[in-house]
């Protein structure tokens, strides 16, 4: 029998705010432990929370980008549990009246477009970070109270790959919208996975398990692959799946039992009397809608149309908002957008990947790239020389024309000089010249190489080719 998985995701996304959800403490990553805390996020009795307006706006923005309905009325509830990561003994979350309802995301997977439905997006506070060692745990409250948006999908994913591709598309949109940095290393995006399988011939959903604590996309992928196979193995052996929570062990590559259904939490949610409800008028929602940033899909289409670059180029460039911004700034200053696109897609992305740097942190400016393209188009420097210039720009920035002068890379296009070098190369390589005349076209490439070498790489290769061909056809 063939089994099909049904997978749903709960994605926790750290919102891009300067201060916490219910107090003014900073949200900076990497601060010394317990230095970004106050009575509110430490859970002192009597300390009163006040909602950060920006966190509400960013959640609504995410909802608008994902086609959710923005609730005209929503409120916060207390989720009660006892654990040292939450000293007030409840987490402030949203239970039955979340900020955003429904929605969905269309994304590319396996060469086609899939749409996965969203159930809801709600706003909640993060908890403290605890580190376990020996018989003690250390608790750092810097993370406590940081605004998280929890996005819950319907169980629409049929494979690990679909879930993975969805997360990539989601991250792209959230970064585009300025909703979150989505920095995985800094824990900006964390997932829980609900996984069940059912026989292909049967409708409905099988018994699900919940996988906790996945903080990389690869981890989500591997955990789903493993868990779906584990469940199918049990069913094929005549066993039954128990509803339980399992933890993904990255090192061992397996899921292990955390708690069974009997221990399922009873959170006893109730409305938080310290916080007033949120009402959003349709006027407010429409104002936010009108401020929506351009999304990756729209940008892809616009880049292709506006700059006349191939759809493939537009897709590569639009994949990263900062890269697309750089391209667009440079292309606007250039009359050869396709050449700008080539530079960004090849040399720029290669160097960024090799150095592990981000396009925002390198000294090369869009205007410098546009100027470099102009030098190449005007035959002031040939491509190998231009590559050298680009590498220097990437490292130190500067003016391309100045770098060409300083490094002596100016292309030799002077007819007289090229003719002399061509004549010399033919004389020194009589055999190659004869081969070419006898029909071996590959010999021409060798002769061009000889001239390029004589010019120390500065000759204009197209000019050299023409001169050699003319001389050898006589």
């Amino acid at each position, binding site marked *: 029998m063939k089994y099909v998985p049904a997978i749903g995701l709960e994605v926790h996304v750290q919102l891009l705010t300067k*201060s916490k959800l219910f107090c*003014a403490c900073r949200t900076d990553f990497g601060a010394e432990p317990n230095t970004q805390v106050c009575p509110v996020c430490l859970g002192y009795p009597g300390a009163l929370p006040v909602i950060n307006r920006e966190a509400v706006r960013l959640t609504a923005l995410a909802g608008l980008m994902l086609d959710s309905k923005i609730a005209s009325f929503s409120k916060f509830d207390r989720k009660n549990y006892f654990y040292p990561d939450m000293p007030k003994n409840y987490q402030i979350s949203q239970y039955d009246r979340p900020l955003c309802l429904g929605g969905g995301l269309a994304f590319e997977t396996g060469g086609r477009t899939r749409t996965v439905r969203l159930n809801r997006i709600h706003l909640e506070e993060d908890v403290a970070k605890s580190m376990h060692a020996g018989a003690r745990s250390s608790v*750092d409250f810097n993370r406590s109270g940081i605004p998280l948006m929890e996005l819950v999908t319907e169980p629409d994913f049929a494979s690990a790959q679909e879930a993975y591709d969805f997360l990539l598309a989601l991250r792209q949109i959230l970064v585009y919208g300025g909703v979150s940095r989505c920095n995985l290393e800094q824990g900006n995006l964390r997932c829980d996975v609900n996984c069940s399988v059912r026989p292909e011939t049967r409708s409905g959903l099988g018994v699900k398990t919940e996988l906790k604590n996945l903080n990389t996309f690869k981890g989500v992928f591997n955990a789903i692959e493993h868990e779906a196979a584990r469940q199918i193995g049990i069913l094929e052996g005549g066993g039954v799946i128990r509803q339980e929570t399992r933890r993904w062990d990255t090192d061992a590559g397996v899921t292990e039992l955390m708690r069974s259904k009997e221990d399922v939490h009873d959170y006893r949610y109730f409305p938080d009397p310290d916080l007033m409800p949120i009402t959003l008028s349709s006027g407010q929602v429409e104002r936010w809608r009108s401020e929506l940033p351009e999304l990756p899909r729209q940008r892809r289409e616009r880049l292709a149309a506006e700059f006349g670059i191939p759809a493939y180029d537009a897709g590569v460039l639009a994949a990263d908002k900062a890269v697309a911004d750089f391209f667009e700034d440079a292309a606007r200053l250039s009359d050869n957008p396709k050449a700008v696109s080539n530079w960004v897609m090849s040399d720029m992305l290669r160097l960024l990947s090799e150095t592990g740097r981000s396009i925002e942190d390198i000294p090369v400016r869009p205007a410098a790239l546009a100027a470099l393209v102009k030098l190449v188009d005007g035959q002031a420097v040939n491509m190998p020389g231009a590559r050298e210039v680009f590498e220097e720009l990437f490292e130190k920035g500067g003016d391309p024309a100045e770098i060409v002068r300083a490094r002596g890379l100016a292309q030799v296009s002077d007819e007289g000089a090229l003719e002399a070098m061509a004549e010399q190369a033919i004389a020194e390589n009589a055999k190659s010249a004869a081969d070419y005349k006898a029909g071996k076209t590959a010999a021409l490439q060798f002769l061009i190489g000889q001239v390029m070498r004589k010019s120390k790489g500065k000759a204009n290769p197209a000019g050299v080719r023409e001169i050699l061909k003319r001389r050898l056809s006589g």
Partner: protein
Amino acid sequence: MNEEKRGDCSRIDVEYVARLARLDLEPREAELFQRQLTQIVEYIRALQGVDVEGVEPMAHAVAVENVFRGDVPRDGLDRDAVLANAPEQDGEHFRVPLIVG
């Protein structure tokens, strides 16, 4: 199991509530709390006699909405002060008995 407990207001399961609150109760305490919690539920039961037909459920007792602050960060407390009252700490963190799961 939990659904039943939540639905049945006539008798509070003190043992279950204690487990959720991670409390070990002496039999004498369990009996005391059983009595007290049952009394509290009795008070509230009086509300069930009120006719609320056509009354919107309230999210809050005060008719105020949209109390917000701007996203303006402020320095946190001094760490020594933060940790001063902790039963156990290491100068940087609060220290608690090992917790997992």
